[in-house]
């Protein structure tokens, strides 16, 4: 499942649904990205996507991960619009026969989402707003997976 939504992510329900009804999946890994308050510097995070294009690009990343790690299933649910500190921005879940594949696929998908998925993030703080761009580390992290 790939979904963008303006409503808060119910990470409990997403996790329960992702794990349900599997008899040959030994490993489920999930990653949940939360908006940080940064000690009061971030009041709200605002996320913009390019409807249609964003889902298509995520689907390509998911397809690559599915093949590369032999996954049984993948979910990516991403929040858009304003997000308050402590709320989930992204939920990624991967299912595989064994733990290493599930965990590496989660790592891989998050690295790609951080620097290659069509989202734009603006931080609103007490001193104004700023756009967040991928850091040098984010770009290097994503490069780890390139052949």
């Amino acid at each position, binding site marked *: 499942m790939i979904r963008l939504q303006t409503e808060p992510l119910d990470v409990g329900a997403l996790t329960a649904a992702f794990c349900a009804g599997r008899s040959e999946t030994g490993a489920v890994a999930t990653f949940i990205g939360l908006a940080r308050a940064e000690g009061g510097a971030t009041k709200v995070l605002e996320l913009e996507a*390019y409807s*249609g*294009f964003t889902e298509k690009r995520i689907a390509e990343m998911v397809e690559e991960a599915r093949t590369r790690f032999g996954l049984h299933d993948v979910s990516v649910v*991403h929040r858009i619009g304003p997000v308050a500190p402590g709320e989930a921005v992204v939920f990624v879940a991967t299912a595989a026969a064994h733990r290493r594949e599930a965990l590496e696929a989660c790592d891989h998908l998050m690295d790609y989402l*951080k620097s290659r*998925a069509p*989202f*734009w993030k603006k931080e609103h703080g007490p001193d104004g707003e700023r*756009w967040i*761009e991928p850091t040098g580390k984010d770009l290097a992290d994503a490069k780890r997976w390139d052949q």
Partner: protein
Amino acid sequence: MRVLLFGRLGDVAGWRERVLATPPVDLSALRDSLAGDDPALGEALTGPGVQVAVDQELTRGERMLAGVAEVAFLPPMSGG
């Protein structure tokens, strides 16, 4: 033809979507036309890491725009 600006490009221009009655011949002509109206936007469009999607496909280099419905300018992306 629809022109879409995302992230800080939309803030620089003060708009995020605009419909052009007559599509420019190619991407260079589109950039020139946007820069003519708004030099700050023109500069931002050629900034580091700005990508272009034509009809929701990432495009590198030049591209004719005949028959194109949508061009989007995408500054550096960051999800998660």
